[in-house]
């Protein structure tokens, strides 16, 4: 059905129906598809396969030998998980710059501030403990395992 266009002189023409279409369809669709593919990269990269969460093991001989109630880290588990990097950094500063090897935990217990002698004494299984997160799913470009 064409719509007539009227003026003071009567019908002067017929309005054509402008075709409803996507102009430059191929370009537009290519752009949309490229964008969607780009931002769904994590989805098709993993293709739905489940990634097991890191599983740091705590069954070293030293820990096993401890009585059940003393099996505690310097601070509580959550604190250690979230802040161990800052704690180690503070230890380094206080040991190297001030020569102070004493660390008092929040519960008041005293420890020697030393990665080698305190942390790794219990956690002697670096590959099953540290590397579980640090190498497998949390590699840092500037963190070099040796």
């Amino acid at each position, binding site marked *: 059905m064409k719509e007539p266009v009227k003026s003071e002189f009567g019908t002067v023409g017929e309005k054509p129906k402008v075709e409803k*279409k*996507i*102009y430059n369809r191929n370009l537009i669709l290519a752009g949309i598809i490229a964008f969607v593919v780009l931002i769904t990269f994590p989805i098709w990269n*993993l293709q739905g396969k489940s*990634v097991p969460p890191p599983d740091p093991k705590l069954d070293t001989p030293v820990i096993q030998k401890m009585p059940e109630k003393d099996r505690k880290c310097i601070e509580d588990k959550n604190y250690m998980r979230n*802040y161990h990097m800052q704690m180690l*950094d503070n230890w380094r500063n206080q040991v190297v710059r001030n020569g102070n090897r004493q660390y008092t935990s929040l519960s008041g217990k005293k420890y020697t501030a030393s990665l080698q002698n305190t942390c790794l004494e219990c956690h002697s299984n670096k590959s099953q403990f540290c590397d579980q997160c640090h190498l497998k*799913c949390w590699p840092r470009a500037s963190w070099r395992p040796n």
Partner: protein
Amino acid sequence: MTDFFKLHFFIPLGIVLALIIIPYVGYMANQQLVLAVVIPYLAVLIFLEGLIYRVIKWARSPVPFRIPTTCAQNRSLPWIKKSIGEKLDNPETTLQVIGRMALEVLFFRSLFRNLTTKLRRPADHPEDAKLYYWSYKWLWLGAIAFHYTFLIVLLRHLRFFTETTPGFVQTIEHVDGWFQIFQPTVYLTGIILLAALTYLLLRRVYNPNMRYISLASDYFPLFLIMAIGTTGILMRYFFKVDITAVKQLALGLVTFKPTVPAGIGVIFYIHLFLVSVLFMYFPFSKLLHMAGVFLSPTRNLANNNRWVRHINPWNYPVKFHPYIEHENKYRQAMKEVGLPVEKE
């Protein structure tokens, strides 16, 4: 005017503060599943659907005539040569259009030519005031700093969504944490992002003219992205959360096996909720210039009107009304008042 400003400034600020309180309340009410799974999925769906809808809607509008805004000479006499810059500013071919668009999208060329005006007293006529124009690159600098740091921050987050961090993300992190200060290493982009946003906000508040034309929809994205950046920085450096649990959550989302690991701090949920809101808001806001820049007819068309005929799709065969018909109709009346006629 003051009230107008207050309304458009403080309402979005209040909304963003409310958007921070909502996930906090949700966290306290143990609604982690809604906050970490339902809302992010919904946000991504709305984002994609809205973006595609808007792009298709734009693509349906015919642009029958070429309307590029040009800043250089069009094709002229053969001995008037166009330099490469003039070709990019007044493109004649598709290749030149691509060059122009690349400059616009990657380097924000139109902002780079931003000018400022000032009334100054000329030295020779100190009683006069003369209008001076000169280059004003601060807006360009703020915009480019914001956009690129935001992109880098976004790419850095790929670490959470991939099993083994892709090499290019590690390279980005390495360069980003170049100075290796503090523990964890400070990423420069985070700081530049917030600094650029602060400038973009102050620019609107400080200048009375800008303040007058700034609307709630201008302030809201600024406040929202500032809140996202601030919560992100707080989470990385100060109120740390269990990052392996966060990664487990993110991987669960992209592999469609969503799990909500226990023990992630509330600040993570606030951050995630604000990002979800940004994604949902995106297709309905000015932020959609991300897609719109590619579809702006004043930039993406070659200026070839002079030698290519572009036909309007709604053109119709016009019934002309020539003079002779007019005269045939009114000949008698024209004769009576003494007007000259072509035919007796």
